[in-house]
C-alpha cells in the first residue's frame, strides 16, 4: 500500500543557532511546531511529496513565557493550553477569550502559538486577536553566516487576503503583547476555520476609552481563506469620538467595513460570511455602547 513512499528525514535542532543553520542547510524542509494543521490536511499521509522535517520541539528557548516591564513575551512553541495557565492578571482578556474558544482542551495542548500564526493558507482566530492587540513577532532571518533579528507588527506578516508573507529564510521565534489593557474587548466566531473555512467569520475587537472618549479602536475581521482586514482608517476616524456611538456612527462604521470587505474579497466571499461580518460588527459596537453607558 505504501510502496515507493519515502520516510522524510527529521532534524531536531536543540538550540536556536542549530535551528538557523538547519534551516539554511535544508531550505525545502517543513518547520514542524505542533503539527495540528499539517496533519489535519486530507492529503497529509500517504503522499509521495513529503518534505524533510525540522522539528522545533526540542528547543527550550521557544517554549518560554517571559514577563518584562512592558511586554508579555511568548515563545512560538508555547501551546494554547500553557498560555491559559498564565493567569488572568497577565494575559489580556481578548487573548484569553480567543484561546478558550479555539478547539478543545485536547487539541489546545498540542496547538502552538507559532504554528497557529504561520499556517500557510488558513488564518485562524489567533492572528486576528494578536493584530487587534497590536502584538509584535520576532523574526530571525538567516543571511548565510549572519542572522538578522527584528520585531515587527504581526499584521505585516500577512497580506489583506491573510496569506503569509514570510520569506523561506524567515523564522518566527517569539511573540510579544504589551501590558496596556483595553477597556472593552470582544471576540466573536461563527463556524470552524478548519472544517468549513469558506463559511467562517471571526471578529476580534479591542477598544480603550477614558471618560467616554475613545483613545484606541482596533478591529480585525478574518475570513480564514480570503480576508484579513484591519480597517485602520476607522481606527483614525473613531479616535477622539465620544461614547455612546450614535446609530448613524454605527451604520457608517459597518457600511465602511462591508465596502472594504467586498473590495478585498471580491467574488470569493459568500453571502453568509457578509451577513455574519455585518452582524458581528454591529453587535460589538452596541455592546461597547452598553458597557460605556453602564459605567456612567
Amino acid at each position, binding site marked *: 500500500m505504501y510502496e515507493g513512499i519515502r*520516510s522524510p*528525514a*527529521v532534524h531536531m535542532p536543540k538550540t536556536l543557532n542549530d535551528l538557523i543553520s538547519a534551516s539554511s542547510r535544508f531550505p525545502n524542509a517543513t518547520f514542524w511546531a505542533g*503539527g495540528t494543521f499539517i*496533519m489535519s490536511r486530507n492529503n497529509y499521509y500517504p503522499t509521495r511529496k513529503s518534505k524533510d*522535517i525540522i522539528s522545533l520541539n526540542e528547543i527550550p528557548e521557544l517554549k518560554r513565557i517571559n514577563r518584562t516591564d512592558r511586554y508579555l513575551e511568548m515563545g512560538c512553541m508555547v501551546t494554547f493550553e500553557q498560555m491559559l495557565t498564565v493567569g488572568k492578571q497577565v494575559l489580556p482578556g481578548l487573548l484569553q477569550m480567543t484561546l478558550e474558544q479555539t478547539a478543545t*482542551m*485536547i*487539541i489546545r495542548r498540542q496547538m502552538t502559538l507559532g504554528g497557529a500564526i504561520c499556517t500557510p493558507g488558513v488564518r485562524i482566530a489567533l492572528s486576528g486577536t494578536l493584530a487587534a492587540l497590536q502584538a509584535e513577532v520576532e523574526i530571525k532571518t538567516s543571511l548565510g553566516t549572519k542572522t538578522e533579528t527584528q520585531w515587527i507588527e504581526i499584521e505585516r506578516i500577512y497580506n489583506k487576503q491573510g496569506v503569509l508573507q514570510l520569506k523561506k529564510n524567515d523564522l518566527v521565534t517569539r511573540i510579544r503583547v504589551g501590558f496596556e489593557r483595553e477597556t472593552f474587548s470582544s471576540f466573536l466566531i461563527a463556524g470552524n476555520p478548519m*472544517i468549513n473555512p469558506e463559511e467562517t467569520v471571526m471578529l476580534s475587537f479591542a477598544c480603550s476609552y477614558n471618560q467616554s472618549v475613545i483613545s484606541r479602536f482596533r478591529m480585525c475581521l478574518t475570513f480564514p481563506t480570503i480576508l484579513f482586514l484591519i480597517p485602520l482608517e476607522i481606527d483614525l476616524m473613531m479616535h477622539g469620538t465620544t461614547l455612546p456611538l450614535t446609530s448613524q456612527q454605527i451604520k457608517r462604521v459597518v457600511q465602511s467595513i462591508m465596502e472594504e470587505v467586498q473590495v478585498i474579497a471580491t467574488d470569493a466571499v459568500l453571502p453568509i460570511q457578509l451577513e455574519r461580518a455585518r452582524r458581528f460588527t454591529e453587535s460589538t459596537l452596541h455592546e461597547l455602547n452598553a458597557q460605556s453607558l453602564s459605567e456612567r
Partner: protein
Amino acid sequence: MKITCTIDNKHILLNVNSNKPLNLILMEDVEKNQTYTRCRDGNCGNCVVLLNEEAVLSCLIPAFRLKGVRILTFEGYQKSRFWHDLERAYNDTGSHPCPHCFASKTLIFESLLQMIIKSEAGPSQDEEPDNEVIVHEIGLNTCACLDAQEIIAIFKSAATYRRRRRVRRY
C-alpha cells in the same frame, strides 16, 4: 525510522515512516482494532488515545514524536483500575456511547477525570470542569449518540467514584 515506545504496557520497536500518523501505526503496525478513524483529518475524534496519560487525537501525532512515550489505547485502558469508575458510571446512568465512539468518548471522559485528580493534588481545589466544558470536550468526538444531560450525568457519577478511590487510598 526505528522507534521504541510502550504501547499498552508492552515495549515495542517500530520500523515506520517518520511522518506516519499514530492512528495508522496502531491500526496497521500494531493491529489495535479499536482505534479507527473515519475522517483521516482530525475531524471525527474517533482515534483518541492516552499519550503519557494525556488524551490526544492519534491522527495528529506523527511517528517521530513517539520516541520513548507511553501510549495507552482503550484496550490497555480497560485493564487499568480507572476503567471501572467509568464502567460503573455507564451502568448507573444507563447511558452508553454507541459502539463506534465508545472507546474514544471513554478516553475523553478519563482525561476530564484526571483534571480532578490534578486539582485535588495541587493548591487549587476548584478545577473540576464545569458542565459547559464537559460537553464541549466530549464534542471533540462528533458522534451525537449522547445528549448533553447524559454526558454530564456520566461524568458526575464517574467523578464520585474517582473521588472515593482517592479517599480510600489515603
